[in-house]
């Protein structure tokens, strides 16, 4: 077995967060290597709604700055389309969805409140099932799989490397620093390490003495056959998130998730369920003029969440040259900014463009050890399998 050449920075995890970080580092001239256990973008990163409008996040301003220029920066198409519409089917939803408007306004982004007539003009597939909506003059949506491939190719254009089908088995440490990543193909030396391994981030960080608490869950989405393009593709609401793709398909998700135990190795199965029917029914309520459209696909993704559902982007206290990153089930849209933040933490030691202290791992210092049980995040799949 020939030795694999080490790198200045090794990133474990070829999802959208790891690849964006890799691209940011590589375009800086840093020698970077991404290790992926399966294929890049094969998990949650390639299986999401593609939304880019996270006004609650400290990365929001940077997310908004970067998306409109990502095609140009990467040199590959992301299918980014700006702005979003959110429709409400009840006054209750209308009130809940108003939070986005207030959050964004505080940060200098404008929105408009739509009455039913305005909403139907803006969204030709909408009908009388709605009471109103919001037109956010920010955010938007992009194609997850294409964007992900764009990060990977752009990173390679800058000299970064990707190794797929690599299993990380452990780490070599010396004097409070990681010196090499141990893999099924031998050790690979590094000066710095980034753990951005999605659901595996918890297990891998625990090996370094400081566990990032996460739990995995399965979520599902549906896709219809193509329909004529609406002026704005980023239309969601009525309990669904999603978009009309540039091809015309409606791709939507929402509703209950199932908490899962995480297999330590390999690619997890991602079965779908009859939840598809309930998403379909709600999509016909959101866009009644699309009720005739046929669903041609559904898919599921396995996603990790921290106990509070908020990201961790932080340096480990136990190993000074390790940055851990999980975006906690909301990673795709924020990826241009999260990669930038990770780059800053690796190279400069702190984030240059935003206060990300709320992403610190130390917020879980007093977390109850049985937090999963306390939050009701129980796993039923394994026991069901045994009794079947």
């Amino acid at each position: 077995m020939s030795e694999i050449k080490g790198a200045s920075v090794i990133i474990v995890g070829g999802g959208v967060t790891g690849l964006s970080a890799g691209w940011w580092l590589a375009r800086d001239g840093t020698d970077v290597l991404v290790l992926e256990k399966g294929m890049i973008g094969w998990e949650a990163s390639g299986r999401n709604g593609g939304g880019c409008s996270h006004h609650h996040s400290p990365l929001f301003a940077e997310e908004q700055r970067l998306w409109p220029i990502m095609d140009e920066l990467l040199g590959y198409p992301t299918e980014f389309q700006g702005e979003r519409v959110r429709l409400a089917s009840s006054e209750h939803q209308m009130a809940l969805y108003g939070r986005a408007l207030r959050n964004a306004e505080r940060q200098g982004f404008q929105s408009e409140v739509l009455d039913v007539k305005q909403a139907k003009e803006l969204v030709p597939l909408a009908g009388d099932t709605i009471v109103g909506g919001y037109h956010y003059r920010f955010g938007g949506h992009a194609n997850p799989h294409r964007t992900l491939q764009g990060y990977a190719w752009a990173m390679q254009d800058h000299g970064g490397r990707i190794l797929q089908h690599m299993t990380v088995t452990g780490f070599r440490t010396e004097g409070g620093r990681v010196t090499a990543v141990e893999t099924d193909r031998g050790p690979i030396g590094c000066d710095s390490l980034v753990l951005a391994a999605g659901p595996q981030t918890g297990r891998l960080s625990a090996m370094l003495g400081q566990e990032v608490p996460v739990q995995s869950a399965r979520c599902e989405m549906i896709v219809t056959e193509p329909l004529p393009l609406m002026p704005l593709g980023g239309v969601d609401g009525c309990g669904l998130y999603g978009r009309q793709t540039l091809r015309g398909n409606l791709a939507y998700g929402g509703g209950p998730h199932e908490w899962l135990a995480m297999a330590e190795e390999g690619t997890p199965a991602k079965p779908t369920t009859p939840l598809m029917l309930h998403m379909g029914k709600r999509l016909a309520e959101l866009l009644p003029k699309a009720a005739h459209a046929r669903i041609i696909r559904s898919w599921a993704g396995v996603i990790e969440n921290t106990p509070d559902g908020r990201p961790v982007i932080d340096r480990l206290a136990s190993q000074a040259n390790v940055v851990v990153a999980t975006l906690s089930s909301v990673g795709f849209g924020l990826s241009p900014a999260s990669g930038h933040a990770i780059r800053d933490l690796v190279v400069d030691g702190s984030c240059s463009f935003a206060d990300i202290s709320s992403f610190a791992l130390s917020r879980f210092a007093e977390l109850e050890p049985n937090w999963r049980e306390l939050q009701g995040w129980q796993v039923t799949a394994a026991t069901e399998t045994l009794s079947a």
Partner: protein
Amino acid sequence: MNIPASDPKSVTGKPLAIDETVDVLVIGGGAAGLEAAIGAAAQGLSVLLVDENPVSFRTMGDDVPLHFGQGMAANARNRTAMMEAFVASEPRIEEAFEAGVDVRLGAACWGLYANGPALGWMPGLVAGLADEDRSLLVQAQHVILACGRRDMGLGFPGWEKPGVMGATAALTLATRYGAFGPRQVVVLGSSTEALTTALALRAAGVTIAAIVEQASETVGDVALLAGLREGGTEILTRHVVREAAGRDGVEAALLAKLDENGKPAGEERALACDGIVLAVGTTPVVDLIDAAGCKVAFQPERGGYAPVLDASQRTSVANVYAVGDCAGIWAAKTRDRTIAEAEAARAVAALGTAATGDQAASLPVPECDISDYRLAWVRASVVEARAEFHVCQCEEVTAREILEVRPPRYLDWQNERRNDRSLAALLGEGPPNPDQVKRLTRAGMGSCQGRRCREQVAALLALGAARPLSAIPLAGYRAPTRPLSLSMMAHVPEAPEQAAHWDTWFGMHAQWVPFWEVPERYTVATNDATGPVASE
């Protein structure tokens, strides 16, 4: 603090609305499915047998579930006549009715769900069914899949024209419905499957102008070949179709000879025909089998990707069996329905018994190496085509665009900085994955759900990577395995407790707190998770 026993936003404690419960659900009413249903009913079990045929004319027009290629005669529009013809052409349907089987024709199964390592929500085996008007969920103690076969597509310029169709579709239209449009056809492929199809079409009154084979020798049973030759059929080895010519449909097949390197050479010749039947690769229908999580593997002796089965036709998922063509296709089985019926009888005998660990009996060696054979067809017909055409007809993707992994044309991405992002750039350390190529090029993502192109895309990737077909993973199948309209979804009600807690995302309060309001520490005890939440 009031702690819920389980996360109210999760599926836990949200019952599925099951419309019906049966002992045995049989999917597919061919030889194997009927034998299974009748046998299970004889044991006193309640049996529901569904078969999606006859599908509506519109569905046939979408090339679902088979590649009909607009080869339907006008009488295929008459649903009642189609139903009568379907029942009349298979006497055991009547027998099943009389045996007490709940037989539902025109009812498709679009999803099969079983608990596994990543799913614990199902109350048992659950199947999604739909007829023209409504969809419903059925729970079954046992499921016997008898979903049949379909054909590998094979493109050439003009292959989208009405009259180019799969062998199984042609055979179904001609022998089950008497609704086959073309009168004179060219058949591509010379395996026993292809020759059997040609003879059956001839018996139904269709003229078989030629058997076209890219290989230097024919592949199938020589006696069948002799029968065709005697009937006036030309046997053309080392030939391919260069184009399906015609204005509104196929009027002629333009044929060319292959040189010693397998490249089309020399003068072309037009053979008059109004149909071109693709019979280069018959493959088990594994869509529901794969979507349900049953183990599927490339098994040449079973005709390609097929379920991994034990001696009693058990799949890897408990209480799910596969019988008939969907369990494996080989020449002797095609010619003798008692082999499929024996599989069904073995499955019925095993219902409710524990798996013994006995392996399936070894099967006959295929009459040719199906990987080499199918790749040779795709190389000669698709790769060496004289003009670009759409391998994926729904999304209009060419072979070159698949091999170069080009972004879809609707993006009009002319300014791509680099043009060397071919398949090789994607390969990395593993074989090319059709699902990855599908997402980047859109090949296979259309409303025919990849039925016409998925085997060709796999073959193109194998050729591009210089690997055998068996090295190319199966592009995954997921429900709905038949297109299903949104308006049909409303028939299965949601549990009230699910509707009450429905949220756009995980429904976690803390996740959406704006960053300027986030507390310094998080504990479950101090987290305020009360009140409504609408995830962003």
